[in-house]
């Protein structure tokens, strides 16, 4: 899921380091939080609405120029689906 393309050796090295970090992080499990609600955010925020109006956007050519590969007005990427 992380899509970082690691080799077997690298995976083993990260496994050891992440084990230590997870052990420290797992200390949160020792706390009794039965009656505690989770906070996803620090401040009580609700949805931010704005008027549904057409606004100026970034320049399409300037944006596409930053892409590794473009095709006319599109980003270009390798095939997503295998040919049957």
């Amino acid at each position, binding site marked *: *899921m992380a899509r*970082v393309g690691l080799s077997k050796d690298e995976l083993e090295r990260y496994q050891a380091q992440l084990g230590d970090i997870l052990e420290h992080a797992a200390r949160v499990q020792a706390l009794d939080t039965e009656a505690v609600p989770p*906070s996803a955010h620090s*401040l009580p925020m609700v949805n931010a609405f704005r008027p549904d109006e057409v606004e100026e956007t970034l320049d399409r050519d300037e944006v596409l120029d930053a892409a*590794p590969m473009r095709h006319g007005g599109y980003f270009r990427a390798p095939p997503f689906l295998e040919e049957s």
Partner: protein
Amino acid sequence: MSAADLTIAAAGAVLRSGDLSAAGLLDAVRRRIAETEPIVDAFLAMDETGADSAAAAADEAFAAGTDLGPLQGIPLAVKDNMVTRGVETTAGSQILAGYRPPYDATVVERLRAGGAVIVGKTNLDEFAMGSSTENSSFKVTHNPWDTNRVPGGSSGGSAAAVAAGSALGALGSDTGGSIRQPASLCGVVGMKPTYGLVSRYGLIAFASSLDQIGPFARTVDDAVTLFETIAGHDPSDATSYRGDVPQVRADLESGVDGLRIGVIGELAGEGMEPDVLAAFERTVELLSGAGAEIKTLSLPSVEHALSAYYLIAPAECSANLARFDGVRYGLRVDGDNVEQMMAATRRRGFGPEVTRRVLLGTYALSAGYYDAFYGQAQKVRTLVIRDFEQAYAEADVLVSPTSPTTAFCIGDRTEDPLSMYLSDVCTIPSNLAGDPAISVPVGLDGQGLPIGFQILAPALGEPVLFRVARAVEDLANFEARPGLTAGEAGA
């Protein structure tokens, strides 16, 4: 003394007196950069043409009698995780090497609208993940006080630039202490505003519920000037605060007489270096002598904040960094299909610390582990917020050391990620709570390295935060500058 050593306030006065032009001030700063950059390495990119035209525009404005405010003609630096139109912006990562953004971050727009001269983009730990700036994929920044040591991080380039006189002020970003800890290690003022007061539009996201942009400066007054310029609602950031920005100038010089100051018991003893603790206690005594009521308060959840942070921040980072997939910007490594291309691109483009955090975050969010790790961390966050609420019923501000240690040696902690994470134990709680906090230099340790004093206030408590910071600055009377620039032949 070189004009590069002036405060923003003093430089503004000189510019308005006509004794020095903005172009002349920029020259002085560039001479300093030319001297210090070979040893400090604070910058990733310089914007020569942009700075020249901004300085020329500032001089024209002065000549025409137009005054855009206290930053007109002032040379500043910006951390390289804030996008600058047409100027290379990498966030310290190979995956963005060569990227020239098509727009300015809102904070950059605001600096420009105020007439500021942005000299360049400063080095950082890759995607702001780190506490030493050693995780930059381009170079290591050195502490101007001792070039064998780290400047702290992740905004180490901005802190080092301001300490060295390579900019009169700078912007950084603070997700777990990334402004305050390097400010402490480099002997400058660094401030994290209340979450939502400063727009994150154009800040390359690390952990969206924790990230906040804030100022570096050599004085509290200059930090206030930068804060006033960048704070305010921005419709482009959905988490931007919609109310009024707190007015901080009025109370700035009011002192601490009658204020209640709470020492965070859990952060003012065990685990702190003796010199750091001594400087902290001396400062608390000075505050007491100036009329503040001092009490020690216990915030038990603070001890679990670090553990919660290292689940929440990687979880948000693994989601945010999914956008670096080789399609829309930055690096692409070819592959036969889109999945191979993405995996190969991210493998080559991300450094080890970023890879660690993406793996950790993906794991903490995965089915079967979500409740035990991420869900539990979000509940601990609630406990931290509640502890702060209780403490602020008894105190106007809270105080602690900013960092348990002074600047450590380059290479000392890179092999042990967990020891690096512990650098942030004093700063992380305010990010989880979303509250403002500031680090003010108060002294030097036995090795001549700066020590920072941290002040924390409740959300939107910037007026009392800056007021106490200004008093600490006066009481501690810290005037030392790094030896690196002290011997410079006057410019």
